[in-house]
């Protein structure tokens, strides 16, 4: 019986220690969850802001763009006849130029002239395109067709 007091005290200490341990694990889980939610909220906010910024940038770019979005066709006179192109504008920029009709051109010359399509797309401008040497007529016809199509694309 002499040790009853000590046993009671030991049990009390064990209960307190167990309660503190239980509290600690519960509180840790809660703190972790809270931190995770906070991180997720921060991430979502970041994404939202980035999306907002991108939309604003796009709107600004569109407002500043020279061409209106769409597909336009143009005709020019080449070496042997008409050259027809289909020009696509997306987000205010010329993205593709497809010379779909050039049946009267000499394939070899027209193949050389086609190099200027890349320049036009790169510069997003039809005025700076140079005539490809050795394919003057085809080049002139192609440029004319492109400028014709682009002229329809220019914002009024």
């Amino acid at each position, binding site marked *: 019986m002499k040790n009853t007091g000590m046993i009671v*005290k030991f049990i009390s200490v064990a209960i307190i220690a167990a309660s503190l341990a239980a509290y*600690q694990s519960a*509180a840790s889980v809660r703190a972790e969850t809270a931190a995770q939610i906070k991180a997720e909220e921060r991430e979502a906010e970041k994404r939202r802001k980035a999306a907002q910024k991108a939309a604003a940038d796009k709107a600004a770019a569109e407002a500043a763009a020279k061409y209106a979005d769409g597909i336009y066709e143009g005709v020019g006179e080449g070496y042997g006849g008409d050259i027809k192109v289909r020009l696509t504008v997306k987000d205010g920029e010329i993205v593709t130029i497809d010379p779909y009709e050039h049946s009267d051109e000499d394939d070899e010359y027209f193949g050389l002239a086609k190099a200027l399509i890349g320049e036009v797309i790169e510069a997003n401008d039809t005025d700076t395109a140079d005539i490809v040497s050795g394919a003057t007529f085809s080049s002139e016809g192609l440029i004319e067709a492109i400028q014709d199509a682009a002229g329809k694309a220019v914002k009024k």
Partner: protein
Amino acid sequence: MTDKKKKTLLRNSFEVFIRTLFFLTMPAAFSSGFLGVKLIFNAIGAGEPINIDRIWVLAGLLVFTIIFGRFFCGFVCAFGTLGDLVYFISGVVQKKLFKRKKQIAIPEKASAVLQKLKYIILFAVVMLCLFGIYSKLSGISPWDVFSRFMILKLPTSDYIIGIILFALIIIGMAFKKRFFCRFLCPMGAIFSLLPVLPFSRIHRDESNCIKGCQACKMNCPVHIKPGEDILGEGECISCEKCMNICPKKNLTRPERRIIKNDIVLLLVKAAIFFVMGIFLGLFRFI
């Protein structure tokens, strides 16, 4: 000088040495330990996890006390040493200056009631921490004031309440052995509720006692007779005064079967605590 007197002198010298050593090198041990209690209840009050890194001192003190009894209170704690020092000086002053034969002291009947105060203080501190009020009250802890004295800095005027309390405690220490430890110390309140392994508890062979002898109780700074009441044993600060005064050497601890010499045993425990204290960062010079 008789052998007994010689032995008493030797033991007293070692006690003074150990207590001076701890007083100078680990004066903040008690407040660091109790800080752990405050941090635990602050965390619970705020619903946050407990910062485990900052409660090692508390854990160390509690485990040490369960194994060795309140050796910490008896020999390590700077506040306990301060109390004994003040009481000793008060005794010398009363006897030499005022020619009193017996030192004025708070009567035992009042003390038995007053010693419950520490549980109220512990409860109050725990509650203040739980409700997050404690951290807003600064400068009320007399321990903080003492800590500032220990690092040889005068407490600032923010500590006015703490300074007043500290002064009152010093006055109390002059009129009762272990005034603070027994009546007010919230850390002592926790220690007194801890179980102590039978291995380290003081056992008394009652059958061999002289009838009516109260030598152990009269010499005990916290006024208990070992083995008399189980609840009172938590108060024992492990100072071993009873073991040394008993005319029949009726008091012993099972640990004495392993280390027979009480001075060696004292040094071994002190060394164990010292090493633990260094690891817990209590040594102020590192």
